[in-house]
């Protein structure tokens, strides 16, 4: 990875009196491109930074760096509401639906979220609405045991909507605080599977509001992440994004485009495979990691 000092030194060149060193700009651009911001977002950020450096009378590389950080944090909408609606309200459990393409970390995130809630003294029920992937329900149930939450399962190949419906019904009857519904991974290009996901949500909504629809995005995902987000939003009206695998070398810069286009905030980040590796998304910390 690029070290802090490399970028810092490069930024020195930005500071000549309006006499911009193209190498330094290229270095800023590279940092953003390599973090998966994509070429148009990168261009916008660089343009904003140019403007700001010109208008602010910047004198040191530290100041230039601070401005870049400022522009990036701003682009992440630091004032967006990022709390997860996972607590009972109006005398019924919160219902959280977890969705995304294959292998992003949905089941793991569901388990971690249960763990956070249970540790906070809440009662959680898990719904294994992935009836498709080999051992998916077992995997969720194992997470449930770890977290101290019961898991409602259907038979392999059962209708996921009916498992989800069942889980919400049982959660409501037994008065739990939250029902977390894990769904099968599906590529946004598969219309049949996307229809199935839409149906899961609609069927659940016959008896309860779905309070939160979390789209789980893998931080290693490149530009395809935006397409994923668009289609999932259309089908299940995503209310928050979970960015997983941020403990690796990937920076997760696709969320700049995702947040802006969808107007939906990243709410949580995944930082490992363990039960406690889930954290709130903090734009400042995210940007610092991106520039590191």
């Amino acid at each position, binding site marked *: 990875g690029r070290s802090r000092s490399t970028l810092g030194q490069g930024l020195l060149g930005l500071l000549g009196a309006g006499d911009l060193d193209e190498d330094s700009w290229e270095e800023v651009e590279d940092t953003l491109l390599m973090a998966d911001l994509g070429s148009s977002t990168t261009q916008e950020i660089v343009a904003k930074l140019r403007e700001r450096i010109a208008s602010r009378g910047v004198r040191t590389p530290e100041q230039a760096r601070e401005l870049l950080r400022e522009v990036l944090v701003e682009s992440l909408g630091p004032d967006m509401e990022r709390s997860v609606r996972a607590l009972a309200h109006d005398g019924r459990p919160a219902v959280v639906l977890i969705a995304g393409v294959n292998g992003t970390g949905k089941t793991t995130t569901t388990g971690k979220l249960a763990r956070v809630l249970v540790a906070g003294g809440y009662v959680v029920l898990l719904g294994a609405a992935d009836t*498709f992937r080999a051992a998916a329900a077992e995997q969720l149930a194992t997470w449930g045991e770890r977290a101290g939450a019961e898991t409602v399962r259907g038979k392999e190949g059962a209708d996921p909507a009916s498992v989800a419906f069942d889980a919400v019904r049982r959660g409501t009857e037994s008065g739990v605080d939250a029902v977390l519904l894990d769904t099968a991974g599906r590529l946004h290009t598969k219309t049949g599977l996307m229809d199935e996901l839409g149906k899961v949500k609609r069927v659940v909504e016959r008896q309860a509001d779905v309070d939160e629809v979390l789209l789980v995005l893998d931080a290693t995902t490149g530009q395809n*992440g935006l397409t994923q987000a668009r289609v999932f939003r259309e089908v299940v009206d995503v209310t928050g994004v979970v960015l997983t695998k941020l403990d690796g070398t990937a920076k997760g810069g*696709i969320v700049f485009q995702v947040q802006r286009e969808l107007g939906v905030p990243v709410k949580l980040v995944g930082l490992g495979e363990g039960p406690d590796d889930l954290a709130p998304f903090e734009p400042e910390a995210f940007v610092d990691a991106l520039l590191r």
Partner: protein
Amino acid sequence: MFDTLSDRLTSVLSDLRGKGRLSETDIDSTCREIRIALLEADVALPVVRAFVKQVKERARGAEVSEALNPAQQVVKIVNEELVAILGGETRRLRLAKTPPTVIMLAGLQGSGKTTLAGKLAHWLRGQGHTPMLAACDLQRPNAVNQLQIVGERAGVEVFAPEPGNGVGDPVDVARRAVADARSRQYDVLVVDTAGRLGVDEELMRQAADIRDAVSPDEILFVLDAMVGQDAVTTAEAFRDGVGFSGVVLTKLDGDARGGAALSVREVTGQPILFASNGEKLDEFDVFHPDRMASRILGMGDVLTLIEQA
């Protein structure tokens, strides 16, 4: 915004059409579009740079063609270069002289290793082999069950002496699996391993230990086609940490352009052997460099355009 290179080039083509020769400006503007298209396709930046430079050099020296306008000529060069990098020496799976052939799978979490194990087994059976799977992911919850179910669906034996979920030593299981396969005359052993990050030194060492225990004939690096710029860092980490002899791209049934194919091929020099394109057992194919080239740049239309010129 233009989505594909063909859209982009159509917009610059109108200016260039009919000039009949490759001026420096023509090459520059076309290469700018190619650069953006490659970045949008998630080709890693250093690879994009090297690639565009190479294309520029060839374009400068290119013969003036009667049939193609300048942009088309550049695109033709791009396509040829892409196929050359992606294809190189496409080769078949390396089989051991004395069975069992050992194929070890490695890659990031969730990339598709376990699913691939089933697909390989299914495919190998179709080729007349008698494969066995070894459950060496003893970490991720219910990875062992998953492999057992996958093996059952593929109709192959699964060596799974440990329950997993944190119980058992994957290196030991791998070692015993080879002995078991040999004594029971399975001729190919596919070793499923836990997902791991390039930066996780401990798990990377474990992968190297598994490798040393089984001396694989192939180590396949399993990579999600949706991956972005991190492809290079991760591929280098696996190359240095455990080493690999081939690449499998997964989830190609989506609409990601899959620029990582180019990055990984270019940076590690290892060939891409297979493409995984679905969740089902038979959604699997040997890798086709030419298809991948058109896919990365959305060039289907451009190539048609060239043919019609």
